[in-house]
């Protein structure tokens, strides 16, 4: 009896320590990024840093506004392409597809998420960039190219999660609707989709988080020019690309400014997560067995 209690105790505390460990690591990372990034805000000025239009480390100019706009535009455009596509795909897979088709589709979509981002980037550089250049002019390195790649990359996230939430709608809803004489499509449109909406919105926000954080693929196709784009065929630089491109060379304030860029990115992603959490709690729907 005693021994049982002891092993229970050890296992319980062991699990607790493991859980705490990951939290500690996250806090270590956060505090490190903040410590390294804050000098940039202090020395250069917070508003000047956020709203500055020129990024020229060699002339000590560290304005990230163009890159904030770049990140947001690339992400929004990618979501604009990915959301309709992936929602329709999720509805198809959850409600319409016969189980044989589903058995093929599911692994294919999972494979999509397993492809390393450098492969997406290389594909974009070799295939998409020349196509965009020949059809739309410019250099081919553009916001649009990057968004296209990102749209494909976030498809699996949105499809898988929204499919989960569609399938977790209680069966009674479906049966009641069909029993009242509604067609299959009417049931999906009026009953199942609205009931699954909070989960779907969460999946979209998580996809957005993935899109905004993606780095390597974007570096290879976005052109990385620090400017506010005039059209979707102009090259842009995203926040993540800025950090990855220049980290190897940065010293002094430049180094801090790159961590500052990281803080900005961090704030944006935390904002997204808070919204996702809020929506889930408000509608009390849990996706895949738990809140975010």
């Amino acid at each position, binding site marked *: 009896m005693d021994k049982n209690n002891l092993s229970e105790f050890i296992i319980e505390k062991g699990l607790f320590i493991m859980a705490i460990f990951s939290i500690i690591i996250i806090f270590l990372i956060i505090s490190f990024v903040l410590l390294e990034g804050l000098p940039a805000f202090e020395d250069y000025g917070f508003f000047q840093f956020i709203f500055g239009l020129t990024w*020229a*480390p*060699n002339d000590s100019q560290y304005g990230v506004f163009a890159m904030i706009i770049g990140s947001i535009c690339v992400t929004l455009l990618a979501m604009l392409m990915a959301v309709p596509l992936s929602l329709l795909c999720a509805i198809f897979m959850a409600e319409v597809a016969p189980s044989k088709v589903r058995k093929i589709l599911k692994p294919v979509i999972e494979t999509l998420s397993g492809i390393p981002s450098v492969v997406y980037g290389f594909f974009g*550089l*070799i295939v998409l*960039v*020349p196509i965009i*250049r020949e059809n739309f002019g410019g*250099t*081919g*390195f553009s916001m649009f190219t990057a968004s296209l790649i990102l749209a494909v990359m976030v498809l699996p996230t949105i499809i898988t999660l929204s499919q989960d939430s569609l399938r977790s709608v209680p069966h009674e809803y479906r049966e009641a609707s069909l029993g009242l004489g509604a067609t299959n499509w009417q049931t999906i449109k009026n009953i199942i989709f609205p009931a699954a909406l909070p989960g779907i919105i969460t999946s979209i926000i998580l996809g957005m988080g993935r899109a905004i954080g993606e780095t390597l693929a974007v*570096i*290879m196709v976005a*052109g*990385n*020019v*620090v*400017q506010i784009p005039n059209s979707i065929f102009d*090259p842009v*630089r995203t926040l993540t690309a800025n950090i*990855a*491109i*220049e980290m*190897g*060379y*940065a*010293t002094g304030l430049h180094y801090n400014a790159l961590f500052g860029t990281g803080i900005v990115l961090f704030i944006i992603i935390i904002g997204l997560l808070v919204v996702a959490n809020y929506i889930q709690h408000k509608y009390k729907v849990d996706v895949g067995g738990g809140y975010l």
Partner: protein
Amino acid sequence: MNSKYKKIILVILIIVGAYLLINPGSNYERIDIVGSTSVQPVAEKLATEFMKNHPNIKVYVQGGGSGTGIRSAEQGIASIGMSSKELDENEKKNLTEIEIGKEGIVIAVNNKNNISELTINQIKDIFNGKVTNWKDIGGNDLEIHIITREEGSGTRSAFESIVMGSTKIKSDAIVQSSTEAVKQSVSSDPGAIGFVSFAHMSEEVKALSVDNIYPTEETISNGEYELQRPFLFLIKGKSSGIVEEFLNWVKSPAGNKIIKEEKIIPS
């Protein structure tokens, strides 16, 4: 109960094994070389060859960029820093430079481009945005797309100091973060121009003559081809025994042979 002990023993064995794998004793001495990704390939070749002859010394080569190389050498994190750009006065104070060779910077255009030579001034005007169409310098009617490297890149700073003078590379030039990516971009775009290191040149893109001189090993080594930069090893203060041994070996005929094979011209 018995199986429980077995499990515990297994866990301990795994931990010990992992420890041994990560930290395989210290019966050899190590040299850490960190820095410029341009110098990295040749440094790796040198390291491999050196280790064959000196089994009790391990040489680790890492990239990270010239900036990282200079910083790591200054802070003593690495035994040797690699840089592909000249040091400024401040950096020179703390570090000793050992030039292992010179490398050319090649102006590359698409194979379909009919231009085969430019003057330094023309290159400058292209990169600072004064000339925007190939027809202005005798080519086809095609917009010029400039592909450049990121700020801080050794290749870019060497290019800027030799070609650009007081002007700047125009701000809306496409930035690619490696020589290979620049080459890839140029090879797929008929209107593109970029600069790549001589060692990375291949058939995929066309090298231009600059001021009538085509970049070859000969023209780079005798200095006729102007676009070139040094490959430097950096050490802080006096080098220790094994580092000294490595550097001497690099400077020896055996070392020079490997440097030459990598299309770098030993100095």
